[in-house]
C-alpha cells in the first residue's frame, strides 16, 4: 500500500530547492531538444530554397564533379532507411525477441529518413516535381529510374506496413515484412548499381557497390537503432527499460560484426583498385589514401567509422551501454563520410582526359557549399523532429 503524500516526511527546503533547479534544468534541455532541431530545420529549408532559386551557383558542384554532397546525403539517408527496414523485417520474420521493442520504431524512422532523403534529392534536382516526373517518362535501361521507382514503391510499402502495425492487423503486417524486406534489398542494391553501371568511371564500375551498400545499409541501420535504444532506455524504467537495454546489446553485437565486414570489404576495394595501376581506378583510390579525400577517409571513414566503434564495443564486450552508444555515434559519423567518399572519389579523376600533351593531372576540385551543408543538417534535424512527433502520437510497442 502506498503512503499518502501528506504523511511522507517533509523534505528539507534545500533539497526541495535543488530538486526544482534540476527539474527546471531538465525542462530547459527538453525544450532545447525541440527548439534546436526546429531552428536547424528552418535554416535547412532556407538553404534549400536558395539552391532552388540560385541553381548551380549555390552548389559546390561543377561539370567535372556533377554530383556533390546532396547526392551523397541522399545515398546516406536512402541506404540507412533500407538498413532500418531490413533489421525490422528480419527481426519480425526471424522472431528476434531481444530486438522486438525497437522494430516498430525502426520502421517509423525508416519512413522519416526516406522522406528526408527524397527531399534532399529534390533540392539537388532544383525542383520537387522533377523527382516525380521520373515515374511518368520511364527509361527502363536507366539505373536511376529503377532505383527511384523502387524506392518510391518502397516508401508506400513502409507506410502500409506501419499502418498495419498501428491498426493491429498483424497477419497483413507479417506479409508486409516480407514485401518490404525484398523491396529494401532491391532498392539498396539498385542504388549501388547506379554507380556500378557506369563504365566511364572505373572506380565505380562493377558489382562491388551493390554488395557494399547492402552490407553497410544494415550497419547504418544497426547504428541508428543502437542510438535509439540507448535514448529510450534512459527514459524508460522497469521491464521496458530492460527490454531497450537488452536490444541495445544485441544491436551492438551485430554492429561489431558488420564493422569487421565493412573493414574487410574496404581493404579489398583499395587493394584491387591499386593493383595493376589502372590509371583512373588507381588515381581515385589515391585521392582517398593521400589526396584531397585523405582526411575524410582515414580520420572519419576508417578511424571514427570502423576502428573506434569496434574498439569501444570490444572493450565494453557489448555490455557497457555508454560504450555502445559512443560506438554507434562514432560509426554514424563515419558512415556520413563513407557515403561522401564513395560519391566524390569516383568523380575526382575526369573521365575524358583526352589531351595527351596537357593531360589533367591531380584531381578535380569539389568542396560542398554552405547551402549544401545546411540542407543536410536540416534533413537530419527534420528526422529528429518528425521521429519525436511520431513517438508522441503513435503506439510503437
Amino acid at each position, binding site marked *: 500500500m502506498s503512503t499518502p503524500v501528506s504523511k511522507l516526511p517533509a523534505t528539507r527546503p534545500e533539497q526541495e530547492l535543488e530538486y526544482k533547479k534540476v527539474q527546471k534544468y531538465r525542462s530547459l534541455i527538453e525544450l532545447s531538444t525541440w527548439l534546436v532541431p526546429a531552428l536547424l530545420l528552418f535554416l535547412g529549408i532556407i538553404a534549400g530554397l536558395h539552391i532552388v532559386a540560385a541553381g548551380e551557383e549555390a552548389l559546390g558542384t561543377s*561539370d567535372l564533379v556533377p*554530383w556533390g554532397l546532396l547526392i551523397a546525403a541522399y545515398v546516406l539517408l536512402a541506404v540507412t532507411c533500407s538498413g532500418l527496414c531490413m533489421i525490422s523485417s528480419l527481426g519480425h520474420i526471424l522472431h528476434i525477441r531481444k530486438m522486438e521493442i525497437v522494430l516498430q520504431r525502426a520502421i517509423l524512422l525508416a519512413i522519416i529518413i526516406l522522406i528526408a532523403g527524397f527531399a534532399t534529392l529534390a533540392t539537388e534536382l532544383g525542383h520537387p516535381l522533377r523527382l516525380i516526373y521520373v515515374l511518368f517518362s*520511364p*527509361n527502363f535501361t536507366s539505373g536511376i*529510374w529503377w532505383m527511384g521507382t523502387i524506392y518510391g514503391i518502397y516508401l508506400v510499402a513502409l507506410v502500409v506496413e506501419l499502418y498495419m502495425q498501428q491498426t493491429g492487423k498483424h497477419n497483413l503486417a507479417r506479409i508486409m515484412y516480407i514485401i518490404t524486406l525484398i523491396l529494401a534489398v532491391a532498392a539498396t542494391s539498385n542504388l549501388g548499381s547506379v554507380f556500378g553501371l557506369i563504365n566511364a568511371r572505373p572506380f565505380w564500375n562493377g558489382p562491388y557497390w551493390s554488395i557494399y551498400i547492402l552490407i553497410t545499409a544494415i550497419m547504418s541501420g544497426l547504428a541508428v537503432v543502437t542510438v535509439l535504444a540507448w535514448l529510450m532506455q534512459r527514459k524508460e524504467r522497469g521491464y521496458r527499460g530492460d527490454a531497450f537495454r537488452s536490444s541495445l546489446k544485441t544491436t551492438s553485437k551485430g554492429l561489431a560484426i558488420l564493422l569487421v565486414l565493412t573493414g574487410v570489404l574496404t581493404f579489398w576495394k583499395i587493394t584491387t583498385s591499386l593493383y595493376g595501376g589502372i590509371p583512373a581506378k588507381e588515381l581515385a583510390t589515391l585521392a582517398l589514401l593521400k589526396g584531397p579525400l585523405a582526411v575524410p577517409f582515414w580520420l572519419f571513414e576508417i578511424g571514427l567509422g570502423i576502428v573506434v566503434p569496434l574498439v569501444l564495443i570490444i572493450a565494453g564486450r557489448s555490455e557497457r551501454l555508454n560504450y555502445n552508444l559512443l560506438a554507434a555515434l562514432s560509426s554514424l559519423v563515419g558512415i556520413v563520410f563513407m557515403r561522401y567518399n564513395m560519391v566524390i572519389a569516383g568523380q575526382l579523376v*575526369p573521365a*575524358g582526359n583526352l589531351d595527351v*600533351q596537357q593531360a589533367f593531372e591531380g584531381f578535380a576540385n569539389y568542396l560542398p557549399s554552405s547551402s549544401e551543408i545546411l540542407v543536410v543538417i536540416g534533413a537530419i534535424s527534420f528526422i529528429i523532429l518528425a521521429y519525436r512527433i511520431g513517438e508522441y502520437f503513435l503506439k510503437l510497442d
Partner: protein
Amino acid sequence: MSKRYGFVMLVYRCIDCKACQVACWAENEVPLGKTRNWITRDGYRGTFPHLSVDYLPGNCMHCDNAPCVSVCPTGASSKREDGIVAVNYKKCIGCKYCMVACPYDARYFHPEKEVADKCTMCKHRLAEGKEPACVTTCVGGARVFGDLNDPHSRVSKLLRKHRHKVLLPEQGTKPSIYYIMERPQEGGNLE
C-alpha cells in the same frame, strides 16, 4: 537507308585556332564558361628537332551505343534515326547522370535551363540544309561533316580511303566521330 550523320576530323588540317568553339558559342548561345566542343592535343610526332604535334578537334561523339542515352532516367537523351544524340530539355530532370556516365566529358550543365546540354550537331541548321557552325567556320577545313550511310558522301569516301580511329574505343561506345591521323605529302591533299 536512313541518314547517319557523323564527323571525320582531318587532323593535319587543325591549327588549334579555336574558331569552331567561338562559332559554336555564337550559334548555340552556349553559356559563359561552358563549351560544346574542344581541341585537345595528341602526343608529339617525330624526333628532335623535327617535332610536330597533332590537334584533335572534338565534341559530343554522338555514339551509337551512347551511355548517356542508356542511363537517362526519363529518356530525355535519345539517339535519333539520323544518328544525332539529342537532349529533350522538357524531359530532362537535371539529375546529371549523363554527365557522370559520358566517357568523353562532352556534357555540361546549363545554368539557366538547368538541364544537361551538349553538341546537337546544330540540328536546327541541318534542318535548313546547312552544315554545323563549327564545320562552316573551320579555317583549315579539318572538320568534315556528312552522312556516314551515304557511300558518295565526303565522309564515307575519306573513311574508305584512309586509316582512321575513334577516341576511347575500349569504352565500346561506337562514336560517330572519326579521326584520320595520316598526313599528305608536302603541299598535297589527302583527298
